[in-house]
Every structure is written in C-alpha cells, then in structure tokens.
C-alpha cells in the first residue's frame, strides 16, 4: 500500500533521514519506534508532503503527490505530533473540518462513529478544543483524522505526555480502528505501547532503519530489551 524507498531528507545541511525504506501492506498495523530525535516526525512530515525529501514514496502503486492537500485526497491522513487542532473551534467543528476532503457524506453518521469510539467527545461536543484535557485533545485529533475516512492513518506520538489510563484507552481504540480495515502506521517512543497491537515494527535510530521484525522478535532482542524496554526489572 505505502512504499518508501531510499528516502533521504535534509534540514539545512543536516542529514536527518538516510536511505529509509519502509513498506506497509493493506490492513497492516505497523509501528515505528525509536528515541527522541531519531527522525520519526520528519519521516511522517515527508510522507504527508509538509517537508521535501529525496527518494521514492508511492501509495497504491502511484507516486504520492508533493502537495499536502492532494495527499489527503488520496486517503493518507496524518494525525500529527502536537495534535494541531483548531483551538478556537468546537469539538464538533474540529471533527467536521476533518471531513473536508469528502464531497458528499452524512455528518451525523460519521460523527456517530467517532463518538462510539471516544464517548467522551460526545459530552464535549460544544466545547472549544483548547479547553479539553491533553487526553481528550489526543482523542479529538484521532477522531478528526478518522472523519476523513483514511485508508492509511499516520499517527505520530499519540501517547506523548498522557497518563497510563488514557494510553490504554487509546491503544484499545487503535486496535478497533485497525480491525475496521484502516491501515495504521504509528510512530512511538513508548515501546511497550507501540508493540502492543502492531503486526510489524521498524526501529529508527539517528535517521537509519536499524531493525525490522515482528513484535515478538523485538521483545526477544537483547538490544531492544536493554535500551527500550527498561532493563531494570
């Protein structure tokens, strides 16, 4: 579905992503793990055309256009780090903006789907997005992305700064979203979270993909265990 081949990205003179090759098949749940500053966000921004890169990115066999609006039109929807909600708009308006790419749709039923997944958003429907708590904002960001009927959902650090209980709810939601047929590419620092429901995992370190495998292989790997799964216990 999504194929990235030999992607190189630079910030000024710094080489941030080096020869990245990543493949995601339809229906898959793929996680991309790695420490802070490894280049996960840059990779996502390059996929959604917010950033220029050198290399090939194709989606369903055709090269992905280099214009964010056109990428969204194809159903590749990016739920960014830092959420990028519309703070002065209500929860409902934020969600409806998410369906901007769709020409004809039934707002009520689309909203209903999101409210089923995150019931708290129904209660907050009329509140301004900036008044929500961090966890609610993250749910809204995911909800807004879902409103665009994604084929491929790019999720960047959805658990950043959230309490364990919220993380659990989000993990559950992601599993449901994936089971409903949406392909997911997730970038996470929190490795246990990223491994929980993923089918396949990539490890990104300083701009290089250093390992690819199943969650089981990752859990068994000595390096991953020591560095990312807190070898304390």
């Amino acid at each position, binding site marked *: 579905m999504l194929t990235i081949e030999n992607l190189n990205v630079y910030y*000024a*003179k*710094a080489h941030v992503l080096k020869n990245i090759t990543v493949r995601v098949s339809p229906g898959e749940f793929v996680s991309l793990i790695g*420490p*802070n*500053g*490894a280049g996960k966000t840059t990779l996502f921004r390059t996929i959604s055309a917010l950033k220029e890169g050198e290399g090939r990115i194709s989606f369903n066999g055709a090269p992905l256009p280099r214009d964010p609006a056109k990428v969204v039109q194809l159903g590749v929807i990016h739920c960014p780090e830092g959420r990028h909600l519309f703070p002065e708009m209500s929860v409902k308006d934020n969600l409806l903006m998410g369906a901007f790419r769709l020409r004809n749709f039934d707002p009520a039923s689309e909203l209903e789907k999101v409210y089923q997944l995150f019931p708290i958003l129904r209660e907050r429907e009329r509140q301004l997005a900036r008044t929500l708590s*961090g966890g609610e904002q993250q749910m809204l960001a995911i909800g807004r992305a879902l409103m665009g009927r994604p084929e491929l959902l790019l999720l960047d650090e959805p*658990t*950043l*700064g*959230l*309490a*364990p*209980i919220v*993380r*659990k709810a989000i*993990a559950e939601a992601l599993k449901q979203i994936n089971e409903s047929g949406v392909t997911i590419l997730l970038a996470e*620092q*929190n490795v*246990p*979270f990223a491994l*929980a429901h993923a089918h396949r995992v990539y490890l990104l*370190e*300083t701009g290089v993909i250093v390992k690819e495998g199943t969650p089981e292989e990752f859990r068994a790997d000595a*390096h991953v265990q*020591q*560095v990312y799964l*807190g*070898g*304390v*216990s």
Partner: protein
Amino acid sequence: MALLHVENLRKSFGGLMAVKDLSFHVEPGEILGLIGPNGAGKSTVFNLIMGTITPDQGRILFKGRDITHWPTYKIVDAGVARVFQIARYFPRKTVYENVEISAIPNEIFVRSADPRAKTVESCVRTGLCTNEHCPGDDRCLCRSELPGMLPQGGLRRLELARAIGTDPELLLLDEPFAGLSHAEVDEISHLIASLRDEGQTIVLVDHNMRGVMRLVDRIVVLCFGEKIAEGTPEEVARNPQVQEAYLAGGGF
C-alpha cells in the same frame, strides 16, 4: 551543606499542576538523576531553577542564597549552567565562536581576562576539538566549522562546552542522550562520567532509567509533578510504587 536546595516548589499552567510541592537537594560532587516519564515535569523543574519561569510557591537555594526570582543570566553567573535537550546555538557563528560567547564575562566597560584560553579549554575538555586541533589555538578546527555541520553527538558536546564555559558549579543536563545513536550514547556518558571524576556536580534528567543507572549516585523519581521516590538506583528500582507507576505504567 548541600549545593542546591529546592523547597516545596509548585507551578501550574492553566489548571494543570506541572510541579507539585517538590523538594530535593543536590550534594557537591554527586550526579543526581531526575527521572520520570514524558510529561512528568522534569523540564519544568529545570526551567524553574534557571529562572526561565517563576514558581507559584516555594524557593530555590543555591549555596545558601535564595535565587528563586533571579534572572537567568544572574543564576548562570552564580554558577548554575544548563544543557538543553534541543541545542540552542548560534547558527552563523563557528563552533569556536559559539563556545567563546560563554567565556566572555558579562561586562561592557571593564576589561577582563582574555576569553581565548578558557574557550579552548572548554572545547578540548568536551572533546569538541582535540589538542592536535588546537595546538597553538589559532588553526583550531572548530574555527571554521559551523554547528549545522556537526552530528547529533557533536551538537551535544557543543552544548556541554558552552555550559562548561560559564564555569558552573552545578551542571543541569536535560535528556543528554536524546536522539543519539548507540555509539554516541556511550561517548557522551563517558564524557559525563569524566566530568564527574573532575568533581563536577551534575543534575541529569532522563525519561528512561537504563541510560543513567550506571552514571548517577542518587535518583529522584517524578510522576505527574510529584516526587514518588528517592534513593540510590538500586533502592529506586526495587520501589514498588516506581515499578507500578513508572516502569510498568499499566502495561505501557
């Protein structure tokens, strides 16, 4: 007497309590680890100590003096320096000139000692330039290089050199291993260990325990702005509350 005393520090943003009645102290010559998951308030604590933000309550004593409401430059002058997680350098100055700014004293009219010797010393001490690069100082490699050309590990060294250039008695390191490759993590942790061996007092923030376990003498664990444990690495690792709230975190 402790070098730094933090007493009942409290800070909230909007309705969110980022730091909640936090107290801890730092002994001269030790490395204290300030550990907690993302969003636990570690960076806020550093911002409070450095005077970037002011606390709602509580005070900060450095060498017995109350520095709570001092401006940043005065706190730095008094002997506290901070290394940022994301390098804050001068992009159009060379590496050498970047370090030099820290070695220039905060005086407009008073003629003071030449900053050159101190700049070279900071560069060499952090491994930014080796002695071969700076034999007579003038042909130093750092002189022509811009920070944008440095790798992540080099940038971290640059940040350290700039901090050391201010002659700190207390060094605050904010996630010094973030974004580094495996090899670079080893290099930087050797560097930190060597600074400690020279007698440098350090407070080190990290969200991950593993990198700091063998470096730190003592650990303070933060969770949602509160101190939930304190002690040697072994004690903290055994603490059930830490395991429950931080390491396990309900599965993730």
